[in-house]
């Protein structure tokens, strides 16, 4: 973990002056609150934190935060974040994404980020829809979700991000619900502290294109069993749960990725040669 204790910051210290344009009722407001609470709890100062994102409603989050931010290319947030963490291991790097950005456009990066196990925290705000572009089905949309844009539903089996994360080597896997910002913040704190690649799926309702998701608050419940360090067991559990189990589901013990020690360049001429293409 790269968090260090420093003079205490309050959650509000991590908020920028930019007002979010998310729809009223959107779960992402709560996720923003959870981020700020988690950073305050971790005791990392804004200049010790970087929030990296891709494209989509959820990926607007760096603009609303007072810390380093990178609102990047669609689906490529993990690549940017991994590079940043490797060259600046002192930073606490948190990646924000959505189910479209993270599982479709960025699906391949997701697999390999889990596999590499760089010390990052990946937070995917999953609302089972492309909200920003007016409600197309995403990889986690139910196959029979019927809309004008996908009459009769897609008929396609949904992606199961938690199982894929476990199978691919993520070192910490959890599920949270945006409507419980205090609990979500607690999970984020644990995710940041856990070494290696931590994946937190946050069920975050899209009240505009999925008004049915307002009912999620009545469906979520705490996972009935404690987290395991056995990835196969965790995968079996999440394959058979109802999709609304909340909490830390898996804590692995793989050592995080460490780049091979390179020779430090101390000479300007040598640095110049490095720039030669």
């Amino acid at each position, binding site marked *: 973990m790269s968090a260090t204790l420093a003079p*205490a910051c*309050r959650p*509000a210290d991590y908020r920028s002056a930019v*007002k*979010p*344009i*998310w*729809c*009223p*009722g959107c*779960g992402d*407001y*709560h996720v923003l609150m959870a981020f700020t609470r988690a950073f305050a709890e971790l005791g990392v100062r804004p200049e010790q934190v970087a929030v990296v994102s891709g494209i989509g409603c959820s990926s607007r989050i760096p603009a609303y935060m007072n810390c380093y931010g990178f609102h990047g290319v669609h689906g490529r947030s993990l690549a940017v974040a991994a590079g940043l963490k490797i060259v600046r291991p002192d930073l606490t790097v948190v990646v924000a994404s959505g189910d479209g950005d993270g599982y479709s456009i960025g699906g391949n990066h997701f697999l390999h980020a889990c596999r590499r196990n760089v010390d990052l925290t990946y937070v995917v705000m999953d609302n089972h*829809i492309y909200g920003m572009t*007016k*409600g*197309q089905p995403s990889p986690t949309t139910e196959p029979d979700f019927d*809309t*004008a*844009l*996908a009459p009769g539903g897609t008929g396609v089996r949904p992606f199961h991000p938690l199982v894929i994360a476990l199978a691919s080597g993520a070192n910490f896997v959890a599920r949270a619900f*945006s*409507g*419980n*910002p*205090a*609990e979500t913040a*607690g999970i984020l704190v644990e995710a940041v502290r856990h070494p290696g690649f931590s994946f937190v799926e946050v069920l975050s*309702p899209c*009240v*505009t*294109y999925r008004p049915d998701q*307002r009912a999620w*608050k009545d469906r979520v419940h705490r996972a009935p069993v404690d987290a395991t360090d056995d990835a196969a067991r965790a995968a079996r559990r999440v394959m058979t749960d109802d999709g609304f189990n909340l909490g830390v589901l898996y804590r692995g013990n793989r050592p995080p990725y460490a780049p091979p020690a390179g020779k430090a360049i101390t000479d300007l001429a040598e640095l110049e040669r490095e720039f030669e293409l």
Partner: protein
Amino acid sequence: MSADAPRAASLVDLYAIAYQIEADAVERYTMLADQMEMHNNPALVDVFRDLARAEGIHRDQICRMAGDFDVAAHAHKVARWRIGESPESADLGAAQYLMTPHDALQMALAAEQRALEFFRELLGNAVDADVRHLAAELVEEETGHVALCHRLLLRYPPPAGGRPAGDPDPPASQA
């Protein structure tokens, strides 16, 4: 009161808890006012700003009652809800861009009722005489706030015919 709600073992703890409840309420109403501003619902901007101002006045009163004691710093230590939210926090998930002043006041009423229930329970469990005294004052305050919400709701009844049926800008996938 949820199992994880902070406990008031002393008078300063109760000041801190009461402060945090009001501070959270200010934060939520400010967020809601900002949301309504971004979504061009000016009537609701005014309502939520007024609610935030009202909670801010109460928060500042608590600070004054605590004298020189740094209530905010103490709240950071003792007034934490790790599972639920503090009782007077408005439910952001219930917001909607076409909501009316009546909807906002219903939201405020629910928050005030949760706060009243919280302080009543705290009063019922308080052992320390000073804590009991302050808890009783807070119960009286919140009772007043609940009554105020009821009065305001009479002034702002639900719109005739309910919320506008036709959304002028419906989500494409539901059109």
